[in-house]
């Protein structure tokens, strides 16, 4: 009843108009290419014509050992890449942030900058610099280890199947540890003084203060960082490509989804690119990332408790 009496509101054009630029730009540069990729993955080039083949490309990707072995290998490596980041990068990031936010630390700004700088370096520089550092011929790593009598522990890590991926993951950790550090640092600074003071009145100080008061308060930030790490890692490509080349040697031990996609899509050396299979792989990457983000959003984030101050 009440609705009938209320004067009819004019259609609010301005909402559409104000949204339009963002919607248009987002559609043009994100949604259309994404839809194009999905579409491309359902076609195949047969005698110079694009022919609709349904899910054939995906069947090949999972059923044909020529593709599936590479795909599962890449996915496995990618998962390991991610695990290393979660186990090493994020705890170290949190630790650094906790240390930086300590009021007694001197030169905090200097450390903050120094740790963050690698993040803004080009991956080409990082890949090349680390290749040189770890080079068994002219690298500083063997010499430094020699100074401490640890020369026997040195092996050409980037060239050994069992170490290469872990070594590259750690290089990536070195490069990006500044990001979790900065985010957590910001979260730690936003914890109000009153809360800390109240904790101190209750006799909770030092480490137990971190575990019992600060850590629960920054958990949502850690969640965000985890999901950023997940998306970043499953989209990773550049470091592997610059350090190991497109074939992600030795023996594909550092092949991740990004490099696998690159070889399929663009081809490499004598291998001719196959955009359709490439699109199928890209679609799988999209689904994997989408799945991971959904799991986080629906299972993890809803259970995180938030505190309002």
């Amino acid at each position, binding site marked *: 009843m009440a609705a009938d009496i209320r004067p009819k509101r004019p259609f609010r054009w301005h909402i559409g108009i104000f949204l339009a630029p963002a919607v248009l730009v987002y559609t043009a540069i994100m949604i259309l290419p994404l839809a194009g990729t999905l579409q491309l993955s359902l076609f195949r080039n047969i005698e110079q014509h694009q022919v609709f083949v349904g899910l054939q490309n995906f069947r090949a990707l999972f059923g044909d050992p*020529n593709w599936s072995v590479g795909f599962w290998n890449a996915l496995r490596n990618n998962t390991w890449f991610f695990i290393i980041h979660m186990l090493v990068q994020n705890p170290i990031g949190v630790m650094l942030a906790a240390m930086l936010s300590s009021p007694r630390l001197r030169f905090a700004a200097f450390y903050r900058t120094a740790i963050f700088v690698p993040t803004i370096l080009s991956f080409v520089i990082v890949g090349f610099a680390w290749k040189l550092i*770890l080079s068994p*011929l002219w690298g500083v790593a063997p010499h430094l280890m020699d100074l401490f009598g640890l020369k026997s522990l040195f092996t050409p890590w980037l*060239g050994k199947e069992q170490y290469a991926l872990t070594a590259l993951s750690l290089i990536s950790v070195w490069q990006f540890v500044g990001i979790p550090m900065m985010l957590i640092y910001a979260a730690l600074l936003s914890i109000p003084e009153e809360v800390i003071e109240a904790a101190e009145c209750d006799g909770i100080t030092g480490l137990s203060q971190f575990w019992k008061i600060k850590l629960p308060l920054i958990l949502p930030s850690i969640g965000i960082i985890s999901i950023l790490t997940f998306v970043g890692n499953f989209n990773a490509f550049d470091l592997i490509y610059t350090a190991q080349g497109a074939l992600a040697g030795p023996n*594909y031990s550092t092949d991740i989804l990004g490099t696998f996609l690159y070889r399929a899509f663009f081809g490499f050396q*004598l*291998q001719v690119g196959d955009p359709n299979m490439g699109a199928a792989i890209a679609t799988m990457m999209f689904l994997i990332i989408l799945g991971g983000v959904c799991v986080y959003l629906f299972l993890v984030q809803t259970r995180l408790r938030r505190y309002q101050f």
Partner: protein
Amino acid sequence: MTRKLLTALLLGTSILGSAGVAYAGDVTLNIESWRGDDLAIWKDKLIPAFEAKNPGIKVVFAPSAPTEYDAALGAKLAAGSAGDLITCRPFDKSLELFKKGNLADLSALPGMENFSPVAKSAWQTDDGKVSFCVPMASVIHGFIYNKDAFDKLGIKVPETRAEFFAALDKIKADGTYIPMAMGTKDLWEAATMGYQNIGPNYWKGEDGRAALIKGDQKLTDKDWVAPFEELAKWKPYLGDGFEAQTYPDSQNLFTLGRAAIYPAGSWEIGLFNTQAQFKMGAFPPPVEKAGDTCYISDHTDIGMGLNAASKNADAAKTFLSWVASPDFATIYANALPGFFSLNSAPVKMADPLAQEFVSWRGKCKSTIRSTYQILSRGTPNLENETWVESANVINGTDTPEAAAKKLQAGLDSWYKPAK
């Protein structure tokens, strides 16, 4: 007033300008290429030499970046704005252009008779009946060695495999030099400088290669596994940490005089001549026993074809015939030591190292890399797999038999030899 004047001026210059071009030469030919490095050689040596002999034809060398060449050329051909002459990549990339009708048939071009069938194989249809590019240059594989090191240790140039390994042992025992500068990090070194370098002696060059394409031989046959077995034996002679040694590392190790032998491609000659401070020599891949026929990888690398849509086809053919002539070969081979003319006529070269390499053509039989023609068209790609497996064999991750088996299985999955 000023505007009119300007228009008139512009009009005038455009007419004069085009008149100028027409006056200077009747026809201008444009060359598409990825060899930007060769710009100076074309401009200062090759083109003047041609224009002096052929008044009325102007040639412009217009290279694009190597990584962009294929894409840029494809787009230009589609748009009809590509140059008259097209530098040809070997094998499938050019074959595809020919099949699309972008490259003209040059089988009857005067000068094509100057090339051997192996030289032409990179730019022919699979049945070998139609040629569509003039072969320009090839690269030869072998071993470059540090002459000073060999003299100091009293090693003579090895001819047989036994001598080769004896030499490596001697260098290793002495300890001054790393016996062999090669790494497996970049993978292709192991395949190109290793497998394809020593392989032809085992599979008897063209015979084995043709048999492989016909399906009469398999990669798991003794002749194709044997090179892997020899590669596996190289491992102890490579430098410390060779698993992470890249291609530039290997080059530097050798030119700094720290390594004695470098499994090489002739394209290194130019760089090594400027960087190495010691005397260098070269020897072909050693054979089983003295007096055996030797085989070398003389890999066709670069050619030149005619854009089928060219409006100056006659002038372009004149130019291509000149490219096929010994004159061109002499200038080109001397300007770029290490890129050898494929011309049957012997070419005089000044560089001693290049001379050594090319002299093997006289005593050995030439072949091209086994994986390049036809066999690398499918998935998995045989050439790329050979890179990975060659590195695996040297690293010891795969036995020679296992590597060969993997390669053959991959090839079998898509390649059905014509019966």
